[in-house]
């Protein structure tokens, strides 16, 4: 592998941070500490990590309902994320959004999104802005396999192709749209095949291979930065957990999950790094311990933070709310 050790360990550490955050979120949810519902990114960490390693702070992403991993990889503050999951005043959205609506405009995260494919038109708009501003930033629009069956996906691909916008459509095909299998709901074997209809490059890759994701997205980002327009990338992965925490997963056998667990991206990358002598036991332990204490700190921060004042529900709708009927 032609990458230096620091870079590779950095990818590993980001995946570990995401996994640790998600495992903790699951535990907290099952303990009844988190309201609402959450969607976990466990098993898909390589995609956010490999993709985001190509981005700078000024680049944008649009995320999904399964967005914690994207946030962390783009550089979000884990404390503010955890506080938002708790519904606390110190959370990213001051308790108004929760897991599915976390955004951080200061690092270019234009929102997780509770609507399947909801982020794709937003990504197209950010792409238009970049082009009008004559910048060389890019947008990565993350979306799931289910989103590729929505009109917004097709409209956005055509739009970005027509205007040659710097938008990378990064499909996370985790095989399930809620409880439905992708092959039972989707007309193509590879979601990237749909790129043909929009006259843009499309490629399918192993989404559990962080280096493959990094390299594929790198080419797409370079193309977008230099005015070459959008790319559709399908990163094939597997949703290890249910659609949401608490999903009884009646639609699959445990043996199927076990089979895929053997291919989950962190263990796989770890084995590679170890076999190449790029990750010692000690380094590995340090990375996991650091992630664990960072997440524990975040939990402490969240738990010790106050809930928002009930009447603060009547803020944040408008910048100027003069004359507004609440």
């Amino acid at each position, binding site marked *: 592998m032609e990458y230096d050790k620091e870079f590779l360990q950095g990818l590993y550490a980001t995946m570990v941070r995401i996994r640790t955050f998600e495992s903790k979120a699951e535990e907290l949810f099952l303990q009844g500490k988190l309201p609402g519902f959450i969607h976990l990114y466990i098993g898909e960490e390589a995609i956010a990590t490999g993709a985001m390693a190509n981005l700078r702070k000024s680049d944008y992403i649009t995320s999904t309902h399964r967005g914690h991993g994207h946030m962390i990889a783009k550089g979000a503050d884990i404390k503010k994320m955890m506080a938002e999951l708790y519904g606390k005043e110190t959370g990213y959205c001051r308790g108004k959004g929760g897991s599915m609506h976390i955004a951080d405009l200061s690092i270019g995260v234009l929102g997780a999104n509770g609507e399947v494919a909801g982020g*794709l038109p937003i990504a197209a708009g950010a792409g238009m802005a970049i082009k009008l501003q004559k910048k060389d930033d890019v947008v990565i629009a993350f979306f799931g396999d289910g989103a590729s069956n929505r009109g917004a996906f097709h409209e956005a691909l055509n739009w970005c192709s027509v205007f040659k916008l710097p938008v990378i459509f990064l499909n996370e095909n985790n095989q399930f749209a809620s409880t439905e299998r992708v092959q039972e709901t989707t007309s193509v074997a590879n979601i990237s095949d749909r790129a043909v209809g929009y006259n843009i490059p499309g490629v399918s890759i192993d989404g559990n291979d962080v280096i493959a994701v990094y390299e594929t997205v790198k080419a797409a980002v370079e193309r977008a930065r230099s005015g070459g327009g959008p790319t559709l990338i399908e990163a094939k992965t597997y949703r290890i957990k249910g659609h949401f925490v608490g999903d009884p997963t009646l639609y699959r056998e445990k043996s199927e999950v076990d089979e895929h667990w053997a291919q989950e991206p962190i263990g796989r990358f770890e084995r590679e790094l170890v076999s190449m002598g790029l990750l010692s036991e000690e380094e590995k332990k340090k990375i996991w311990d650091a992630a664990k204490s960072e997440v524990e700190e975040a939990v402490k921060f969240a738990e010790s933070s106050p809930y928002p004042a009930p009447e603060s529900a009547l803020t944040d709708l408008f910048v100027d709310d003069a004359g507004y009927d609440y």
Partner: protein
Amino acid sequence: MREITFSEALGEAMYEEMSRDPTIFTYGEDIAKQGGIFGAYKSLLGKFQGRVIDTPISEEVIFGSALGAALAGMRPVAEFHFADFLFTGMTAIANQIMKFRYMTGGQAKLHLVLRGPDGISKSAAAQHSESIETIFMHIPGIKVIVPSTPYDMKGLFKTALKSEDPVICFEHKMLYGLKGPVPDEEYYIPFGKADVKREGKDVTVVTTSRMVHESLKAAANLEKEGISVEVVDLRTLVPWDRETVINSVKKTHRLVVAHETWKRSGWSSEIAFIVQREAFDYLDAPIEKVGAYNVHIPFSPPLQDFVVPDYKDVEKAVKNVLGGI
């Protein structure tokens, strides 16, 4: 004072603000080369290279991209072509634009404008005739402007182009050609300030858009019968000018609310509710509503004329609140 059309007033507002603010750009169907389906952008033709853009017929992206462009620092003005087609891309408005700032705890300033024609024209039929401003008043998260004259169109739209909140502007198709006085000097009209288009003492008619003109015609006719009608043009529905309406009702003691949209659950219901609560003791008669019958806008001219309200319906409603004079 010089007179220009409603459509020219919109063009002037766009021209002045686009000249001032390089982040404003506008896009939609049939605008860059044609100047809009009703010619609203004719004065922008050939100007602002690259900032007036024809797009695919992709409503969800037309609206949703306005949010993305605003988040990325631009000030988009997206055209919806016909108000009916707001439904086609409605999720991008109702689920994304209108919720974004609130959901994210006030992180964003959503300086974006959605604009386009609404209302009836000559037999455009059910899918090109809607007045659906009430829906945008019902769902929180966007400011709603409904101008009735060239003067208001220009002043309100210039304010919209400086707003830090999302704005939707409904321009009635029958008004684009309407001429009216517009000063040479620059001016802005704040949101939430109604305009008393005609003073009167017997009955207040609260209205907007095309129905302002129908109400003024009704008032002129009724004056001949000795009935004095005050016509209050709300100009904006979110926010709406409660104070002017209540004060007018306190003076006249009778209220008619007139709009082109359906009578059932139209925004008149909200105005009527607030007025009965805030000025109950001042009312001398039940409040009347004027609106379309609760069916779709039919094609054939006599059918359309029957369903959609005009000055005669306003006259009838005014007489009703006066006790059937």
